[in-house]
């Protein structure tokens, strides 16, 4: 019962939302708790026990950490972190069990955030019910957003009456997410699946095409399903943090990661990056490096020291494959390179007199970032490191643009009509992204419009999903990509 399945969209979600809406204020938490438990049990079956144990352990550890002091506090904290990540490691990396509990990569980070916040004294130990509500919130348990206690806990602890505007906004957001997933991502899956599975049979020109398609698919799938998640949460009056902010308008790799999978980035920044850069040892090292080699070298050194664990963690978190780790290293190199070249770039603009903010250079930087991102995604999606390297080499070895014909495109199982939907759907999504970048908010815009206009838009959204969605006969239902991480 994933978020893109009719059972969730047409039965579970509306029923849970209705019960929640009509439950007395005092009972809302219980309704939510039951909905979370039913949802997780339906998805994970027996492995629900692992999840419940994690909730119980997190709650118990918070109390231990909260009540201890000095070294004891640190010992409890470290023990908690080791057990949480040890469980994740055992399931995801050592594969001691045939199946991993649903959403383990996500809820482990959230549980760790609870322990860290309590350890830092920024959060009081939560009650068992609150811990469960925080970790198990069903719209987000499958694929995030990875929230910190300060993001949602208060909303869950003190549920407010759900406003009509929230319901309207939530439903529209769900429909938009479904359009991205069903009309674009699931269609692209056929092309991407074939090209990455049988990469040795394709000429070099197909490789950049495969990379662009897989980047698009990943964005439409992940951001689409996050839209469904955020929209579902809105039906319960809960505002989840955004996970995407027009990532393809980024001007460098660092900015891309501040716009793509934002909550993972925020988690890593809060709990890995900042503790390193503000640690006494690193501050001392920076001071001495500054004295010996100057500010530029010291900053680079600190960036390297703090970003290396961040990017290794990012890579490893995605799974036990070398190409994920190398994907992390790839971004580390790109971001450090950007840092290292900053003085040279500043000098270039100063000497030439070109405006850094001029349209040409802005577009240039966006295109450059897109190339970096697409190359990274190619490596990320490839079936292993060797396959990734082979595909990149193939691009330069055997490049023949004449291979990219409509007849050849049809061999992936999609017809002209499918490609037309992908193309126009993508244009629509990017146009909306561009509007959002310039401050447009559809809900604010709609709130000032007459009922007829509002309803027309809702009807159009439903029709778009129902008519152009790649579901039912002739299409293969595609699982949510990020639910597998």
């Amino acid at each position, binding site marked *: 019962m994933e978020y893109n399945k009719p059972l969730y969209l047409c039965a579970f979600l509306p029923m849970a939302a209705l019960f929640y809406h009509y439950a007395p204020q005092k009972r809302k938490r219980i309704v939510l708790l039951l909905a979370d438990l039913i949802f997780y049990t339906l998805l994970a079956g027996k492995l629900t026990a692992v999840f419940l144990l994690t909730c119980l352990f997190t709650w118990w550890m918070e109390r231990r950490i909260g009540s201890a002091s000095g070294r004891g506090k640190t010992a409890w904290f470290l023990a908690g972190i080791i057990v949480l990540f040890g469980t994740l490691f055992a399931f995801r990396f050592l594969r001691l069990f045939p199946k991993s509990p649903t959403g383990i990569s996500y809820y482990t980070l959230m549980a760790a955030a609870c322990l860290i916040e309590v350890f830092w004294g920024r959060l009081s130990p939560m009650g068992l019910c609150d811990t469960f509500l925080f970790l198990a919130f069903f719209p987000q348990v499958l694929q995030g957003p990875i929230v910190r206690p300060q993001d949602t806990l208060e909303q869950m602890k003190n549920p407010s009456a759900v406003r009509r505007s929230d319901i309207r906004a939530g439903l529209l957001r769900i429909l938009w997410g479904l359009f991205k997933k069903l009309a674009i991502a699931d269609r692209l899956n056929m092309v991407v699946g074939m090209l990455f599975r049988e990469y040795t049979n394709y000429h070099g020109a197909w490789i950049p095409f495969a990379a662009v398609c897989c980047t698009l698919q990943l964005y439409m799938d992940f951001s689409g399903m996050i839209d469904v998640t955020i929209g579902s949460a809105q039906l319960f009056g809960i505002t989840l943090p955004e996970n995407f902010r027009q990532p393809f308008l980024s001007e460098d790799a660092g900015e891309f990661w501040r716009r793509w999978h934002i909550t993972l980035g925020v988690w890593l920044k809060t709990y890995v990056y900042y503790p390193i850069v503000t640690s006494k040892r690193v501050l001392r090292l920076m001071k001495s490096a500054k004295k010996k080699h100057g500010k530029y070298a010291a900053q680079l050194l600190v960036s390297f020291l703090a970003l290396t664990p961040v990017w290794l963690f990012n890579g490893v978190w995605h799974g036990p494959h070398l190409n994920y780790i190398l994907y992390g290293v790839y971004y580390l190199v790109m971001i450090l390179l950007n840092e290292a070249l900053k003085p040279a770039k500043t000098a270039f603009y100063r000497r030439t007199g070109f405006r850094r903010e001029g349209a040409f250079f802005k577009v240039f930087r966006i295109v450059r970032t897109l190339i970096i991102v697409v190359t990274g995604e190619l490596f990320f999606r490839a079936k292993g490191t060797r396959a990734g390297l082979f595909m990149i080499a193939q691009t330069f070895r055997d490049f023949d643009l004449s291979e990219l014909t409509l007849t050849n495109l049809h061999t992936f199982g999609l017809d002209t009509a499918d490609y037309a939907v992908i193309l126009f759907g993508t244009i629509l999504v990017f146009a909306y992204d561009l509007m959002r970048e310039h401050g447009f908010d559809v809900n604010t815009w709609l709130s000032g419009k007459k009922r007829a206009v509002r309803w027309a838009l809702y009807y159009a959204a439903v029709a778009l999903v129902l008519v152009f969605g790649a579901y039912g006969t*002739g299409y293969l239902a595609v699982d949510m990509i990020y639910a597998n991480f």
Partner: protein
Amino acid sequence: MKKTRWRSILCFVLGLFLILEALSFVSIVILMHSDRTIQKRNATELDFVRVRRNSLDGVVLGSSLAYMSIDPEVIEKETGEKFYVLGLPEEKMAEAYHLFRLADRRQNLKVVGIECDMLFQERSKAQEIQDVAIEVCAQILPIVKTHDAWKAFFPHEKSDEIRKNGFRIEKNSSESVPADTAGYMEETDKCAPLSDYSRTILTKICKQCRKEGIKVILFSAPSVTDGSMEKHNTLSRLADELGVAYIDFNTEDIGIDWNKDTYDGGEHLNTDGAAKVSSAFAKKLETLEADE
């Protein structure tokens, strides 16, 4: 205030329903005038509703094993009875039930043949619920099944498959690829597991048929890859429980030569193999009718 809100919600839902009904109508009209490539799974139903009402004696339900092994023309030649194959690739039980209901409404049926391999499809509980829900939903809003109709306005390659009363002949249907029969129908007392979902739907079809005096024949089409003694044992018992006939063409000697009569190495039959099964089916039909 509350009353106004409910009225507003009701109006919205009604408006949405009308729009979806209109879209459904338009999509069906487009599909009726389009070719099979666009019609996809709907083609079986769309072809069937074109058959004159009360002109058939029987229908056969099932997956590709059904529509590639039962040729209604052969049955008609041998028994004089008119049949139609309502088969879909990997037909789900919920789809089979819907097609049965459709056939029952439009035709005065005497016989319903059910190719039983679809009973053993592995579906999770959630998928089973979803299958049924989609079928029910499609009855009210066909757009969920016909939503691809707009593709008819785009250039596409047309299907060269020929259909004769539901029997499908593809380009290479007369070719043969020998099958490896090692382990095929090995003796065993074991039974293949059958889900409650398959059992319930089959029982429902049988009950309805009994009520209307329609004869039900369960059968297994010959298939090296899909046929097994486990399935045979389960189906024999099930047929006894339901009080219907069961014929397993995997165990019956009907002259299938696995070197010549299969077009894909043992899963499906070619036209020669289908002729043999159809002829055997016709003979069994006559025997069963004579027994009565």
